[in-house]
């Protein structure tokens, strides 16, 4: 496929997505949900059938498994970053911990430290360790707000990578660890597909529960939530712990498939950046946003990488700026009935009115909706009558 061909594919895909979004935005909400579920089901069936097709290669399956990893990590990131509003810049630390604990337990034999564990128990312990560490670290870092939390988590991430690097007897230091090889691409593919679907359903479930609502309350106004009887510390640390556990799970799965880990590939910033960007592109705090956004981003990068190696970071950077400027609510956020419509999108980006970024309503709309003028008239009357009473 030549460069021109790639560009054509890219433009075609982007146009198809844009058209789908516009189409979805134009139809009523209930129909939209049915169409969305239908599209999801078709894609899911396609993904299930794919490994059974004859010309699907193992390397293609591995690429798709990596895509599922990215999507899974994004869903986890969205639980803290999107729903709870704690933007975690070091989320990949749980991935690295999951990978390393799995690696250490499985390679005990080669290190001469004991008998190597089988994969499944290693994976369970690894996710458990990630969860416990998330609970402990979260308890400390989640006292911080906004960018301070983000930076603290970035620090945690970098520190953990160096701790792994210097703990040589256990982790193999900078040389890394080799895991017993086990090649079964379809198995890992199906396991991760199942995990991602389960996580997606879990997110959807969580959003509707009271616990899920308290997370949104924490994002919207943490002190207000606390003052209204919500144990904010417990709830936010609980979701952070789950997020760590689940990302650790993906880390362990990745380590076994990769068969080799060292600090620089297990703890890599890009994994966090992908989760943040994918979720933002899809829609922060939406259920399907992280899936759509990070899958799109992953495929886009495969395309850019293959054809514009020198440019791919620049293109990605421009894309991020584009998201922030033109798509602050993300692809799925655009479809949210409460936030915006096609017409308000037009006035939002191409009109000259002042617009409230958070609600998407223009000042003119607000004036029309509100009966401020009626209030003002009656206010005068009341003031007069109150004055009269006061004088009696």
């Amino acid at each position, binding site marked *: 496929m030549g460069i021109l061909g790639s560009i054509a594919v890219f433009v075609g895909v982007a146009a198809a997505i844009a058209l789908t979004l516009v189409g979805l935005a134009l139809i009523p909400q209930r129909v939209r949900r049915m169409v969305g579920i239908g599209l999801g089901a078709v894609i899911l069936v396609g993904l299930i059938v794919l490994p059974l097709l004859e010309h699907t290669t193992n390397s293609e399956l591995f690429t798709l498994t990596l895509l599922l990893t990215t999507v899974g990590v994004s869903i986890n990131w969205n639980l803290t970053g999107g729903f709870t509003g704690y933007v975690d810049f070091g989320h990949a630390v749980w991935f690295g911990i999951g990978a390393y604990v799995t690696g250490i337990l499985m390679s005990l034999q080669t290190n001469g430290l004991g008998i190597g564990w089988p994969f499944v128990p290693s994976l369970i312990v690894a996710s458990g360790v990630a969860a416990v560490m998330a609970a402990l670290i979260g308890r400390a870092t989640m006292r911080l707000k906004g960018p301070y939390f983000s930076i603290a988590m970035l620090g945690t991430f970098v520190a953990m990578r160096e701790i792994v690097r210097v703990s040589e007897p256990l982790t193999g230091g900078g040389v890394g660890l080799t895991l017993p090889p086990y090649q079964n691409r379809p198995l890992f593919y199906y396991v991760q597909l199942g995990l991602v679907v389960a996580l997606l359903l879990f997110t959807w479930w969580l959003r509707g529960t009271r616990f899920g609502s308290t997370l949104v309350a924490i994002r919207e106004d943490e002190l207000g939530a606390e003052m209204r009887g919500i144990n904010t510390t417990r709830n936010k640390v609980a979701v952070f712990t789950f997020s760590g556990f689940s990302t650790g799970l993906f880390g362990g799965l990745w380590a076994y498939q990769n068969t080799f880990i060292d600090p620089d590939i297990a703890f890599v910033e890009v994994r966090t950046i992908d989760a943040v960007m994918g979720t933002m592109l899809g829609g922060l705090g939406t259920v399907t946003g992280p899936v759509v956004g990070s899958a799109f981003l992953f495929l886009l990068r495969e395309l850019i990488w293959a054809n514009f190696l020198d440019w791919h970071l620049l293109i990605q950077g421009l894309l991020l700026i584009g998201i922030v400027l033109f798509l602050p609510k993300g692809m799925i956020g655009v479809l949210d009935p409460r936030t915006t419509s096609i017409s308000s999108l037009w006035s939002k980006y191409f009109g000259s009115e002042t617009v409230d970024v*958070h*609600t998407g309503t223009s000042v003119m709309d607000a004036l029309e909706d509100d009966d401020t003028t009626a209030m003002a008239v009656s206010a005068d009357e009341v003031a007069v009558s109150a004055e009269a009473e006061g004088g009696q």
Partner: protein
Amino acid sequence: MTTATTSKSSGGTQPLLVGRGITKQFGGLVAVDNVDIEVGPCEMVGLIGPNGSGKTTLFDCLSRVRDVTVGSVEFDGQDITGKRPHKVAQLGLSRTFQLLRVYPALTVLENMELSVQWRDVGLASLFRRSDSTTRDQADHLIDFLMLTRLRDEEAGTLSGGQRRLLEIGMALMSKPKMILLDEATSGVNPSLVEQIKERLVEINRRDGVAFLLVEHDIRFVKDLCERVVVLNYGAKLAEGRPDEIMENRDVIEAYFGDSGSVAT
């Protein structure tokens, strides 16, 4: 709603909220200076004072938003001086804020429902979805506070006065024993002030909810409260019936800097 006690006298019965010797220092600044305050069950007490006299800081100390430097707070017979704010709210002490704290991206209904989410604690909250009882209660309060038309609007799109009403509604959702009301009328147009006043009296009479309210509108305090506490430079300047307070020379001086009479 709440354990309705129709008697309005606080004499003889145990006070609901007791603050003893509350002092709050910010560095060298003493924002609240050794203030004693008591509110009985079903009582409506006003807290007034010039700007910067420490009213909101005292509120923050009472509702546990801030730690007291010295002193103790008791609510409903329990010492809450060291308790976390959500525990205090769960005991039945709600508050509203001078700077409004509604959840802007959520609808009015969702805002209301969220104010009782703590009722399912622990794992149960993972399996409970919003139920019809909560919704009915929320709808009832939304009607009561004249927000019916705005039920499904995002709270961020509401006007200041409507947000005040919503905050009061949110405070009421948890069926509190007492509400700390911080400037319920600031930024609210006079017609709405009258309506808020009516609603507050009704809540007090019908449900026996006690109020401590910070207020700039003297007339509002006079109409609602049997007792008024005046703060100045963080210390308690006077306490008594509203009409006595209006005549009090110290109070007049604190407000106007001279001995003119208070214009009502």
